[in-house]
């Protein structure tokens, strides 16, 4: 059984149909990428899975259980954690406080343990533990957003454009970390503009176009697909 399954999910903003019948799945241990142009509905998909955006049709299943009507906090408690587009760190809080908020539903002991893992993945965050998050550089904020999501002990970690606005070297670093996070046992659902790099570290991918999935396959297949190369890899 898939860890996460979307069945004919529909999601609207008023009269705008952002998602029109989306079905896909993410299996335990995979890295799955959603690619698509601006406005295709990638963020809406993530928000609908996280429960920030209500569902207007279809179903979302976690391990076969229908979670479509659950509140966000219940989903977080069950391991669905989103690192949102644009980082959204708490600017007035220190780095450490931001991380601790990520572990809001966890016990203190668990947080101490996870914190060590996060500091090991992102030594920069440890150096800057006391600094206000709002004063971090863009790359550091992104690391913080990912680290904060990890503090929630995700079974499914959703990352919405983790490389946005970052220098190529840092992008490489972030993607290497995503692979390490998966190797540590977390399933990853990734949204990326940077399709080529994302596909290289993914197992499978789906292509979204104006609220529909138009293509899917293994990452290796999509990397060589002509349609994908033309539309998303700039070849």
């Amino acid at each position, binding site marked *: 059984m898939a860890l996460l399954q979307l069945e004919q999910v529909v999601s609207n903003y008023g009269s705008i149909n952002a998602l029109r019948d989306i079905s896909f799945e993410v299996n335990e241990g995979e890295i799955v990428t959603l690619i698509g142009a601006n406005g295709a509905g990638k963020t809406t998909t993530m928000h609908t899975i996280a429960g920030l955006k209500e569902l207007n049709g279809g179903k979302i299943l976690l391990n076969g259980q229908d979670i479509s009507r659950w509140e*966000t906090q219940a989903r977080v408690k069950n391991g669905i*954690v989103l690192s949102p587009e644009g980082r*959204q760190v*708490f600017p007035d809080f220190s780095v450490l*406080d931001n991380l601790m908020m990520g572990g*809001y539903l966890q016990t203190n002991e668990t947080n101490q343990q996870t914190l060590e893992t996060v500091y090991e993945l992102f030594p920069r965050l440890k150096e800057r533990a006391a600094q206000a998050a709002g004063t971090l550089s863009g790359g550091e904020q992104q690391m913080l957003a990912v680290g904060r999501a990890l503090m929630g002990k995700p079974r499914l970690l959703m990352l919405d454009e983790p490389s946005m606005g970052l220098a190529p070297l840092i992008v490489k670093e972030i993607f290497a970390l995503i692979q390490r996070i998966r190797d540590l046992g977390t399933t990853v659902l990734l949204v990326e503009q940077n399709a080529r790099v994302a596909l290289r570290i993914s197992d499978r991918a789906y292509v979204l176009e104006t609220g529909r999935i138009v293509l899917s396959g293994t990452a290796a297949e999509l990397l060589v697909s002509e349609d994908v190369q033309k539309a998303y890899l700039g070849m």
Partner: protein
Amino acid sequence: MLLEQILNGLTIGSTYALVAIGFTMVFGVLELINFANGSIYMLGGYITLMLYLGMGGHFLLAFVLSILLTGVVGFAMDRIVLSHLRAKKAPKLTGLIATMGIATVIDNVILLFFGSQTKPYPNMIDFGRFYIGETAVNSSQLVILAVAILLMVLLSLLTYCTKLGKAMRCTAQNADAARLMGINVNLIIALTFFISSMLAAVAGTMVGMYYQSIDINAGFTVGMKTMASAVLGGVGVLPGAMVGGLLVGLFETLGASYISSGYRDAIAFAILILVILFKPAGLFGKKKINKV
């Protein structure tokens, strides 16, 4: 004489501060101007009086029950009305108008039950007056100041040192991100209303005792003055509301005794306008407020 006036001003100012803190906390988590806050303050005062008379003089019990009951009214106001507006993604202005509606309902319920006459209020904290040097000090003033300071310390601890306080501050900074941490944002907001209404009840009761009377117009004036206090200190900032409340109390008392008592209420707003002109974010405000 001057010292006495300063003490008078700080006493009344500390009660403004309590109400202003509640106002600012709600604004912090919701960016909502709660026009019902003044009515809730008055309601708290009336409920204490009603329970005190009804229970044959158990003042402390009446006071505690009244604080809780008023808190529940605030909580219910959010759960029954405002949370639904949020769920429907109604514009902020709709929420603001809704709080005006709630204020009208509360004012009229009070009018219905208690009538429009000024009611005598028992002063349970009057243990006489004494002198420090030349300065006459009233025990009621000391009790009010002590209670207000204690509550401010407790609230600061709650906000800055507890998990609930951190969840409130997260919600204030970014509600969606707070949700993604697993914070039950709707509950946090309702609890904020609960706390702010309890504070208002404490202030409403203490002021009733201090003046030994309560009347139906108290809510509106105090609502406006505490809003002025919060803006003066910087809306959404806890220390801002505290200092703002104290300053408004101080200035209006000094103004009333040294300029003219007729200007008491006008002075608070004159100060407000001056501060907004020269420091739009308020004394403690960090950034410009461009919301609402």
